[in-house]
């Protein structure tokens, strides 16, 4: 890397508009990924979408999210993904490049919640939790980063959650994966910053339609009343922060930004 300073971007007239940008949302078959894909499309981006598996239900949900992108007047591309196969992620990026010739924004919205006392956590559960929440994030960053480096522009946003930044009992495997994403985000910001790629994480509070949390009335009640102020946020609130980071000029990088209603700010 030379000592030459990077070019300074020009000030956009509409700072949150993403028109002409191509985005890829991984985990678009779940409510959070769906909300993010929708928000990116509303802000003007074309959106490619992948779920976390290739079963019928997942494909239906991804198709539904893709349809909403279309309804927002943007191009969509529903891609099938088996997250255990790294070549599949490369193939996704190649298909996006073939269709649109660019990939500007990657959002990793994978979120597979797993909670169990650690002494009861089996090796297979550990492996699956790490594979979906951490390894697939690393692989999609690697696949997308090649294309972004080629074009000298990229915005990568990885969604993490409270257990990735603060201790939460019974979530050791999930926490290790999410904490791994926080560290991966910081490291990638250093490695790719000079190539025009900004890498950030969104620390989402527990959210209302989070599988395993938001659909459990007891946990919802406990989180709302007993545990933390504002601990339950909406997918739309998380999506708005993703839009801000996707549209940013690139000087915000390496950060993990909380959208958790101050839940992590108190003693």
């Amino acid at each position: 890397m030379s000592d030459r300073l990077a070019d300074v971007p020009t000030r956009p007239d509409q700072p949150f508009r993403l028109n002409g940008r191509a985005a890829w949302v991984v985990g678009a078959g779940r409510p959070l990924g769906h909300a993010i894909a929708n928000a990116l499309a509303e802000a003007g981006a074309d959106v490619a979408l992948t779920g976390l598996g290739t079963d019928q239900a997942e494909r239906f949900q991804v198709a539904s999210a893709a349809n909403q992108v279309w309804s927002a007047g943007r191009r969509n591309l529903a891609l099938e993904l088996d997250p255990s196969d790294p070549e599949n992620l490369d193939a996704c990026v190649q298909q996006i490049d073939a269709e649109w010739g660019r990939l500007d924004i990657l959002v990793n919205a994978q979120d597979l919640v797993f909670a169990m006392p650690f002494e009861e956590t089996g090796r297979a559960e550990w492996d699956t939790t790490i594979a979906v929440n951490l390894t697939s994030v690393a692989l999609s960053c690697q696949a997308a980063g090649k294309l972004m480096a080629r074009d000298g522009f990229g915005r990568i946003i990885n969604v993490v959650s409270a257990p990735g930044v603060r201790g939460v009992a019974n979530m050791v495997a999930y926490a290790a994966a999410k904490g791994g994403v926080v560290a991966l985000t910081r490291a990638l910001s250093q490695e790719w910053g000079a190539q025009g790629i900004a890498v950030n994480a969104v620390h989402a509070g527990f959210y209302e339609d989070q599988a395993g949390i938001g659909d459990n009335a007891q946990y919802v009640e406990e989180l709302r009343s007993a545990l933390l102020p504002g601990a339950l946020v909406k997918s739309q609130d998380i999506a708005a922060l993703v839009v801000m980071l996707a549209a940013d000029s690139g000087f915000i990088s390496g950060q993990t930004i909380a959208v958790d209603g101050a839940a992590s700010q108190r003693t």
Partner: protein
Amino acid sequence: MSVLDDFRLDDQVAIVTGAGRGLGRAMALAFADAGAHVVCAARTVAQIDETAALVEQRGRRALSVPTDAADADAFNALAATTMETFGRIDILLNNAGNYATRNTVPLGDLNDDEWQIDMDVNLTSKMYGARAVVPHMAAAGRGSIINLASIYAFAGRKDWYTYFAAKAAVVNFTRSLALSYTDVNIRANAIAPGPFPVSHFADQASVFNPKLAVPRFGQPWEMGPLAVFLASDASAGVNGETIIIDGGGLAGGVTPPTWRPRIALPGGAA
């Protein structure tokens, strides 16, 4: 209804301290671009008048109110004048700060009066501002307060005490403020900018670390979208947070980003 509507500030009223120049002016104009009317506060009348004129050029209303950020009464008058003129205060951008009367001062040479004025301007001014606007925001059941911290809240530097201590305190003041008014829908967040050379930082080259992951300085306009995000409903779920905008400096910093080791696994393990 689009997500972009959440980023609008149409018809809202923002008070911006330190609005006469640099980052404060840039953020004041970003508020105006997003639809807000702007009350421009600072000591130097000619500068806030100029910012106010730029706000009006964008089709919004503006008011310039000469204000000393170290003066509690001045903040109360600022809030009162804003309420008289506009009838509402939606946003307070507590931007005023002085960087420091003198930069590097060994501990034994710290001057009590300088320490106090630097604390007043960089830290206490945030309390004065919040205390003045919170009753009006609480009555309206909504409000967003944004405090200017700094990357110097999260790292130290030899012989440089006051500014660093004040900015770190701003981060934690913001947390307590955020937790105190959730019931009346007032949010408080902070922005911690890194290297943004502006005209009054004459010694920028010696002060700023250019070895950033994003190898350039920030431009004042780049603060605008972040300030608008925190001021607007787009950040409804963000509270008590300090957002760092520093080209990835604090995310790294132990090694320069240009240091690229290659260390294979032992014995060619894979």
